[in-house]
């Protein structure tokens, strides 16, 4: 892959909590030393369970929050050193679709004003006919321009969220669990729409999800995160997992096929608190292959550069 669109280098973000009158502040690393590239026109999936840092990573990449360390290089420009004005100009090329289509649209705005807002923010004039064009691109009737968000179903709202993201013709779109709050039937519609748009507009996607089955269907490469760190990068969606956690995620999916009922062997235990990470591999406490070394030493993401894994005992 020549010249990636985005290069993420050693990105970290620390959060602090507490520190009131009676408690000492506690710190956690929501994202720990993450390095990735996103190729032009690629759909890169990021999967993991709650608290794995996938949404923090998405926000760091768009610099919606500032990193504690590391940098993000977008098409040759280091975003982390850009001025506010420089960043605003750069934002024309990147957009985000949020998880919850209920809280990400202003209830007082008509759809036309929702779609005009990106132009207003960028100080651009709003081209005539743009509302109809955007609504049509996401499969909504142009007559909806005067509707308010409360008149729309969840699926229609998410289509508006996508139209807003596309308004300024970005190259890169971050999709943060865009279907997590929707019915499966509507989820499939939205996924089909996102696939069509990617093909038609040559978009590059960073697709954040907790659903490995969906990510394997939709994405080219898959980044698996656990407690803030990347544990494996699958070079193709259908590649066999090497990290025991990735394998466990695949095992946890319910295939709609009663003939091949899998004996689901659920992982024991739950994700440890990010404020009190165990020494060694963060997954060791739940891992069937864990050894003494795993409980003492943190494995680095290494091995085949096309399919790196952070594990002392990969499958």
């Amino acid at each position, binding site marked *: 892959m020549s010249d990636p669109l985005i290069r993420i280098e050693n990105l970290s973000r620390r959060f602090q909590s507490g520190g009131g009158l009676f408690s000492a502040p506690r710190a956690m690393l929501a994202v720990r030393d993450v390095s990735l590239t996103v190729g032009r026109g690629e759909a890169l999936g990021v999967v993991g*369970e*709650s608290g794995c840092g996938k949404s923090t990573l998405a926000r760091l990449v768009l610099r919606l929050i500032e990193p504690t360390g590391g940098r993000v290089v977008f098409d040759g420009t280091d975003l982390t050193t850009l001025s506010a004005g420089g960043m605003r100009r750069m934002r024309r090329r990147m957009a985000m679709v949020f998880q919850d289509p209920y809280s990400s649209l202003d209830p007082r705005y008509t759809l036309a004003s929702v779609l005009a807002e990106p132009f207003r923010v960028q100080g651009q004039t709003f081209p005539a006919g743009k509302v109809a064009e955007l609504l049509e691109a996401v499969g909504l009737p142009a007559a909806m321009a005067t509707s308010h968000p409360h008149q729309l*179903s969840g*699926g229609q709202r998410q289509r508006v969220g996508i139209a807003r993201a596309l308004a300024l013709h970005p190259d890169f779109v971050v999709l943060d669990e865009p279907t997590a709050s929707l*019915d*499966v*039937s*509507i*989820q*499939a*519609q*939205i*996924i*089909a729409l996102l*696939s069509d748009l990617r093909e038609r507009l040559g978009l590059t996607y960073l697709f954040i999800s*907790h*659903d*490995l*089955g*969906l990510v*394997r*269907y*939709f994405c080219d490469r898959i980044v698996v995160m656990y407690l803030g760190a990347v544990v494996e990068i699958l070079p193709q969606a*259908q590649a066999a997992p090497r990290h025991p956690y990735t394998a*466990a*995620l695949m*095992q*946890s*999916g*319910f*295939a*709609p*096929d*009663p*003939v091949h*009922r*899998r004996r*689901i062997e*659920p*992982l024991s235990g*739950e*994700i440890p608190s990010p404020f009190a990470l165990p020494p060694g591999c963060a997954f060791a406490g739940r891992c069937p292959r864990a050894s003494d070394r795993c409980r003492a030493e943190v494995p680095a993401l290494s091995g085949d550069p096309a399919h790196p894994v952070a594990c002392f005992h990969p499958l």
Partner: protein
Amino acid sequence: MSALLQMDEVSVAIGTAALLDRISLTVERGQILGLVGESGSGKSLTAMAAMGLLPLIGGRVTGGAVRFDGQDMAAMTDSQRRGLRGGRIGFVTQNPMTALDPVQRIGAQVDIVSRLHLGLSRAAARARTLDLLTQLRIPEAAAVAEAWPHQLSGGMKQRIVIAMALAGEPDLIIADEPTTALDVTVQAQIIQILGSLVRDRGLALLLITHDMGVVAQVCDRVAVLYAGRMAEEGPVGPIFAAPAHPYTAALIGCIPQEGMAKGTLRGIAGAVPSAAAFPPGCRFHPRCPRATAECSSTVPVLAARGAGRVACHHAGGAA
């Protein structure tokens, strides 16, 4: 053998809105019935009707009968129905975060169920609680019983909610989307716990879900609802092998599967209509690929087909 829960052409209305139209289903001991459909299809309302909880939301049964272990629920007194709920009928809610009282310790919340329904003493109830928590593979049950809800993770809280449902010695458990609020790996744990309860204790489970994958992996039978009506019902094997109703086929087709080619997942166009806008004829016809003129004028009857039943003028699959 008589069914434990039997709903016979049950219709439900809230105010003037007729929301459920002749729902018929049965759940037997040792069996898991999956109840599926999109949001707004009437799954949760069916569960409320089964528990006699409709008055809580201003609803009422306008036709048909709900029988629990052969007894007509409508003929019971309020206190008899109250005795069933939490006793012989256990309920597991969707969101464990709101199902527990935040200002009461875990143990006390589980204890109260067996004290009320089984008349156990304080000490006996606590012993039973600790036993249940251990059976649900909760480590350090005694410590957890002394904990507050906010100190537990979501998966742990859902196990506590299941323990509460089990504490009254239920014969039937109704679980309304018990895993949607949980992480994927924890989901698998909870589904497996529910499945083994049914097999090991001979419980009956009515499992409400929107996930056809869960149905395929754990249910014995499945009932598919659409816009307040039954679309199809039957044993899981044949229904997944050859769904007779186009809506069932579409729901199965919404789940991305291993090795599925990109671009094949299309979803179901449109959305479930609201009760005010139910179309005439088959309510699915505006979204249906097989719809003809007949579908928009005549309501299809739920007719026997193989080991199940289907309501469609153009039912496909093997008869």
